């Protein structure tokens, strides 16, 4: 499969001397749904800024579908749609005009631009708001407008920088479905998010960036395999006064109806349920204490912190 994005030895040092990127190598395959994660200040937004020509790189190369950022910036920009973290449209312009104007910047004729604007406003549930100034929209609507704007020129690679930040759960899930459908249609998607559940649900591959370096770049499945232990919370039918004796498992009673159990990957869950059944303890439901990816993310970032304490 060909490469949608190829980054080699990308560096960025800001004018105040801060080195945001220290030689990043990253490849994203065509058709992928890729998560780019990292703590605040890790270099995610700088990387996206360079890709979208809003930040000048200090060194290295970037190409999108074979279009080099230095040699063919216009070709690269035509393949790329960017949904930024911050709202960045004209507050006084009508939302329909924002989309048609953006299409015009890509050389799309007005008639086609109007048809596309209508299509995406319907798709993202904004058609009824088409004649309103963008400042009148709610936060969730503004996020959807930015997605529509990024898609108006039919990009092959869509980059979303925290697209669901501050969005309610219902809308977040409808945006997830929309993004999954776009990916099914063949659009390569790169997503940054602080909701690790979102990354785990949507993305097939993952890159973790910290202190300006890629500290992990693998498939979601491979990454989750690294998790040796998971912590589950069991909701119990009857109340427990004392901690049950579960051999091979570390347990803790959070309250008289909730049991926390640490399960090693090698041991599995069957033995746990067998022992619980033997003791007459009925389990109503079970859930992860924290998101699996979150646990891994924290451990990776912490281990990197020890290596590079800058």
């Amino acid at each position, binding site marked *: 499969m060909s490469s949608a994005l190829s980054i080699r030895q990308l560096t960025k040092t800001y004018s105040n001397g801060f080195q945001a990127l220290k030689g990043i190598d990253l490849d994203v395959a065509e058709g992928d749904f890729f998560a780019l994660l990292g703590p605040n200040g890790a270099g995610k937004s700088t990387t996206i800024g360079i890709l*979208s020509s809003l*930040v000048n790189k200090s060194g290295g190369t970037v190409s999108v579908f074979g279009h080099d950022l230095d040699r063919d910036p216009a070709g690269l920009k*035509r393949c790329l749609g960017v949904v*930024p973290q911050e709202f*960045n449209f*004209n507050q006084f312009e009508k939302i329909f005009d924002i989309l048609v104007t953006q299409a015009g*910047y*890509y*050389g799309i*004729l007005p008639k086609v631009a109007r048809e596309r604007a209508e299509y995406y406003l319907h798709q993202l549930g904004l058609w009824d708001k088409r004649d309103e100034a963008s400042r009148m929209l709610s936060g969730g609507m503004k996020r959807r407008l930015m997605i529509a704007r990024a898609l108006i020129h039919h990009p092959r690679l869509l980059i979303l920088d925290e697209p669901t930040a501050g969005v309610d759960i219902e809308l977040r899930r409808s945006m997830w479905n929309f993004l999954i459908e776009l990916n099914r249609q063949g659009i390569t998607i790169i997503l940054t998010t602080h909701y690790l559940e979102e990354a785990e649900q949507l993305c097939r591959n993952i890159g973790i960036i910290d202190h300006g370096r890629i500290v992990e770049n693998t498939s979601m499945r491979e990454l989750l395999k690294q998790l040796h232990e998971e912590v589950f919370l069991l909701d119990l039918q009857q109340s427990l006064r004392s901690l049950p004796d579960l051999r091979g498992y570390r347990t803790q009673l959070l309250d008289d109806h909730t049991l926390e159990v640490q399960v090693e990957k090698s041991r599995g869950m069957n033995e746990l349920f067998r022992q619980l059944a033997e003791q007459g303890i009925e389990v109503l439901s079970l859930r992860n204490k924290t998101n699996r990816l979150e646990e891994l993310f924290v451990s990776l970032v912490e281990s990197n912190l020890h290596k590079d304490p800058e």
Partner: protein
Amino acid sequence: MNVELRANLVALGTIVLREIRRFARIWPQTLLPPGITMVLYFAIFGRLIGNRIGEMGGFSYIEYIVPGLIMMAVITNSYSNVVSSFFSIKFQRSIEELLVSPVSPHVILIGFALGGVCRGLAVGVIVSVLSMFFINLQVHHLGVTVLVVTLTATIFSLGGFINAIFARNFDDISIVPTFVLTPLTYLGGVFYSIDLLPPFWQSISLVNPILHMVNAFRYGILGVSDIRIGVALAFMLVASATLYAVSIRLLRSGRGMRQ
């Protein structure tokens, strides 16, 4: 037509149309005030005081100042259109819409400059029409008139663009119009002929670029000028080219727009 060229022309049309739509939408702030201000100038300086001044350059005083006042409106409006529009999209960060797209820096610059020229010319036409209520406005040399007013609007649009690139806050976009453009315009022969000045101040006045523009335009309308038209036109062409080159260089560097 070449695909790249066609895309750039569509993008150029989009920028120009957006600029025209912007100043037309807020006409009470953009098109109406210069009309009201100039009517006051015509009535007070032209009619009321002008009748006591008598002739200047062989014309009644109001006839003499009308070309300068038209130019004053064109200069102010072409400059302020670009400086406020470009700084505003920088301030709101909607400039990122342009920077992420494949629009070339030349298209961005020409688009904004044409927006400024369109507003300058629109205001010029409005003020000219209003002046007809006070004088019998006749054009002595249409070609020179159109060329001079267009070049002037271009120069000040480009000047406004450079100002907007350097501006960091709204104060920065009002400094040049207040402390540079207004004094130069008032001292640029709008209200008087430099023949009235002592020789030393005449020489100093010749350094003022607006004097050349106002006089070239006055030549186009009335057929009289304090300076040589050829020199004025050459100066305006060189100024346009220089400001264009500086603007493109700044735009390409991403100054004030890219980190």
